């Protein structure tokens, strides 16, 4: 009988035995922000609601942009 089957048949649960999960504590240091690298491949019309970012685009790009405070 495999562990999966054991678990399914409730034997381990009946004896309240649980394998504790591995504690790997981590931080996603690079999440959704990682692709905010200024790029000049998609130079579109300037978004007036945003401050243009100096990323080498000519004319000024509108991405990624930070809304003006």
């Amino acid at each position, binding site marked *: *009988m495999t*562990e*999966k089957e*054991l*678990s*399914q*048949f*409730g*034997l*381990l*649960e*009946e*004896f*309240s*035995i*649980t*394998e*504790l*999960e*591995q*504690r*790997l*504590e*981590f*931080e*996603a*240091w*690079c*999440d*959704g*922000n*990682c*692709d*905010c*690298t*200024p*790029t000049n*491949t998609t130079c579109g019309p300037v978004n007036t609601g*945003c*401050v243009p*970012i*100096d*990323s*080498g685009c000519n004319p000024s790009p509108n991405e990624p*942009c*930070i809304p*003006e*405070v």
Partner: protein
Amino acid sequence: MAYSFNEALYIYPLDAASDRAMVLCEVPAQNDSTIRFAMPADLLELLKMFDGRRDVAEVFAAYDKLNPGKYSLEKVENLIRSFLLPKSLLVDLNTPAFLPEISSKRTTYIFGKVRLFPQHVVYPVAKLFGWAFDKRVVLLWLALFILSHLLFYLWIFPNHPTHGTHFGGSTFSAVMLLSLLGAFIHETGHASALVSYGCKQTEIGFGMYLYYPVLYTDVSEAWKLSRQRRAMIDVAGIYFQSVFQMLLLGLFFINGSPVLIYFFLFNDLIMFRTMNPFLRMDGYWLVADLFGIYNLRQQSMKLIKHYVLKLFGVNRTEHAPLQTLKPRARVTLAIYTVLSTAFFFYLCVIMIQISILYLLPAYPTRLLAIWQVAQEKPFDAIKLFTTFFEVLWRTAVLVGLSIFAYGLVQGIWSALKFLVQVLNQKFRKGGMPVKIGSVP
């Protein structure tokens, strides 16, 4: 057949919010690893009665005399054969000793794991910071953390003319590099807390979690510590990282670099996200430890499974996970289950959006961009690095999303198969409720 309790096991009390006393049982396993089981203290009493002389029936009779009707002989024999012997909790003295394998069923939530710093590197470094976990030092940090944030958000940031004007490629790269350094400091924080409480086994590595590239610290040995100490290990990452953040804020007063302003903001964002309890980041462990619910995700899934089966009119012999917990932990688990289910659906939507609408269409163009940047004259190493890094990140994210999607489809398929199976059995029995534990 006479068996003996494995004397090579390490046993500790397990600090958990269970309805009975629990113990942590550490089993040395293959490849220098350790398997950890939580089990009731009274079951351990039974296991310790196996002395290599008496057979199973004799041990059971002696135990049953002390704890009448607690377990049945048939089930104990079944447990010995299919679990206690393969996992080396009991040993047969007539057969050669062996180390159990790590179960293939063990959930690995980080894939593509690469060990960057092994124990013999991490341990001496972590040991240097034991003083940081003195109560007075922690309180001082807490006060400085609050003060520095008030100072930053009420005075420095509103009065600094950044407004994105300095946010070019080089600023971005500098912020990313500082964040990477901050991430290593974060992991050192976890390891330092662990070591300061007398644990030794740890390592720092790199891997992918869902679609996030992550740095991880193995703090599994923390299971043997009290909940309070485990919680300190959980927040120690943010503790160390925010000290680094405060030091760089101090540097800002010397050189006034806008990079440090962006880093402060970015670092706060990372620290905020890492406290999300629905992903297996620091927030998850903090909730689990503060409320004493071990295997929080697993128990939450069991709770869902229990009520789904109940919805289909299928009885289960096992108790609902809530019944094995103390009242406060029961409420926490129920709330956590509802919120994490909602978050899971939200995450699925986000992941579909990221992959289909954003990552996949732009991937070929970004790949080509590496070649274009490499050909540019004059050669710009920073630009090449950021472009290459971006493509690397996109690739890792796509791989992560694919694995997540595969796991999701597999999970849905298994759940459907299981439901069909139990409903089939239910109807075969003429609509009578079926007990899963007694499936023929």
